[in-house]
């Protein structure tokens, strides 16, 4: 690869060199730079995506050859299996509640930080730090904090005279507890939104103040329109985060159930009462515990379609942003 490039440029652009030759050289340069990525994309994204669609129409257990089922897996997914519907419900819950809370919370924290005059660096650092904690470690930390008997959260609530709940052991509270965990780790969104807030031109606020606009009107008419693209990015980012929600659900369920060996048995997945059984978690159990690869592939196709819709939204958004940048 290198040799080709060097030889190509060693030949100085002679005045009579044809356009075709130059174009060919340019093509070889691009190919040289891009070839590992092209191979990687084809092997690790292109091929598996197509293969997933094929597998989704089959019954496949890794050992015997795939057996054609037609739409069998898809029909089974929507008719004869209650757990996959539970998984869909849990993921939809996370997409709606977790996304809303995460974006609003990150925006709120970013707005507070943007108004600070001193200690910005310290506050920003401390708010961002938790998002770097490995998800497994963060989840175990929260399983400890939310421990019904001796966890600091319930201890604090008891101090206030409130009867703390069972959190990760209560089917109604497991998902809200996971949401709080996600808020704790939303530092990345905060930084993005903070940068956007600091980019809003101050003159506009001053002009609005002269016109007698209050804080609410200033937010609606100046802040919101300016940060809209970044806000959009945050929403899509959070939706995709919620659609992929896996590690925290698996670890929280297994730690709370008390018996867990995460990589071992599937018994305590979704604990308590399947309330933490998200769509990717059930996909994992079907594919990698029960070896129903065809069925898992059908679930993957559904996940792909939903993710694709949101990705398309994001790409459109980014295209619009880059037009502004270039224009």
């Amino acid at each position, binding site marked *: 690869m290198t040799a080709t*490039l060097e030889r190509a*440029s060693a030949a100085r652009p002679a005045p009579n060199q044809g356009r075709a030759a130059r174009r060919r050289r*340019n093509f070889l*340069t*691009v190919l*040289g*730079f*891009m070839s*590992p*990525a092209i191979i*990687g*994309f084809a*092997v*690790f*994204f292109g091929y*598996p*995506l197509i293969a*997933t669609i094929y597998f989704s129409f089959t019954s496949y257990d890794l050992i015997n050859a795939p057996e054609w089922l037609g739409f069998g897996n898809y029909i089974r997914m929507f008719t004869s299996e209650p757990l996959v519907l539970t998984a869909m419900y849990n993921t939809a819950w996370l997409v709606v509640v977790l996304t809303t809370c995460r974006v609003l919370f990150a925006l709120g924290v970013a707005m507070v930080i943007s108004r*600070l005059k001193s200690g910005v660096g310290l*506050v920003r*650092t*401390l*708010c961002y*730090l*938790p998002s*770097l*904690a*490995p*998800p*497994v*470690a963060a989840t175990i930390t929260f399983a*400890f904090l939310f421990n019904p*008997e001796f966890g*600091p959260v319930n*201890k604090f609530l008891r101090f206030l005279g409130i009867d703390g709940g069972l959190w990760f052991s209560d089917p109604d509270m497991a998902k809200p507890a996971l949401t709080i965990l996600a808020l*704790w780790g939303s*530092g990345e969104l905060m*930084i*993005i939104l903070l*940068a956007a807030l600091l980019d809003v031109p101050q003159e506009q606020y*001053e002009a609005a103040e*002269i016109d007698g606009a209050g804080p609410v009107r200033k937010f609606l008419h100046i802040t919101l329109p300016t940060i809209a693209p970044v806000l959009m*990015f945050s929403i899509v980012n959070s939706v995709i985060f919620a659609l992929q929600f*896996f*590690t925290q659900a698996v*670890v929280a369920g297994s730690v709370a159930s008390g*018996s*867990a*060996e*995460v*990589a*071992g048995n599937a018994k305590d997945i979704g604990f308590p009462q399947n309330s933490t059984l998200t769509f990717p978690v059930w996909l*994992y159990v079907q*594919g990698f515990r029960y070896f129903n690869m065809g069925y*898992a*592939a059908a679930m*993957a196709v559904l996940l792909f379609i939903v*993710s694709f819709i949101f*990705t398309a939204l994001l*790409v459109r958004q980014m295209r619009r942003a880059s037009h502004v940048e270039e224009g």
Partner: protein
Amino acid sequence: MTTATATRPAHRRGRRPVKRNPNGSWQKTLYWVATHSIGLALALAFSLPILFVFLTAVMSDSQALSSSLWPESWHFENFFRVFDKVPLLQYTVNSLMYSLLATAGMLISAIPAAYALARLKWKGRNTVFLLVVAAMMLPPQVVAVPLYDMWVKAGLTGTLWPLIVPYFLFDAFSVFLLRQFFLTIPQDYIDAAKIDGCNEFTAVWRVLIPMSRPGIAATGLFCFLYTWNDFFGPLIYTGENKDNWPLSLSLASFRGQHAVEWNLMMAATAMIMVPAIVLFLFAQKSFVRGITFTGVKG
């Protein structure tokens, strides 16, 4: 009071002279106190969980089971006791293998690709960039089944190779982030290098890469952290083979083996968090730059 609200310079000093009334300054002070106490409360709320991890980690066995928050006596030896309970050293080596090799591979493969997407002019470049973005957003679970099938046939499940090898060819997020950074380097520098006799390859090597060092550092840090934190990949590929577990998997299973030893559990948790925290404190600027780049500069 009404005039005070209307002319109050809120949080910004107005350019024109603001009519000051006697209330103006204490209201400003009040506003300052209010925002700063909320800020402080947030900072505290975010750091408390990590503080509790460290405090519980050094408690005695019996105290960790009581509901106390502050250690009566400090048992720093807990951090060493974890090593007796599980082969933590082996797990750390596995984690480092995965993270360091993946990051090195990413740098080799992603820098040229990002350069071609940011700086070279060619037909279909925008389409390819959209494919990169799409690959970045694709949930790992979507492609997991055929990839697993592939690695089973290659006889490499149970090892770390299925996790590492892809980075030597393509990592969508890194290509995306590096492209964003490269776009900010003025083309003039590269053109100047070419006039001075550099070809495309040496111009990248001698000019673009040194100038993009902060961006490359940020991308490397993100790649390292992502792989250090990864759970789904190792669970699928090395789940069956304990010898090749990285820290994330071992920590998730620690509780199962040592049901009630919360102090040791927290000691292990703390030790896995530390590299991420230390990395961040050393390279805060790179991190923040990288983060804002992913969201703001579309």
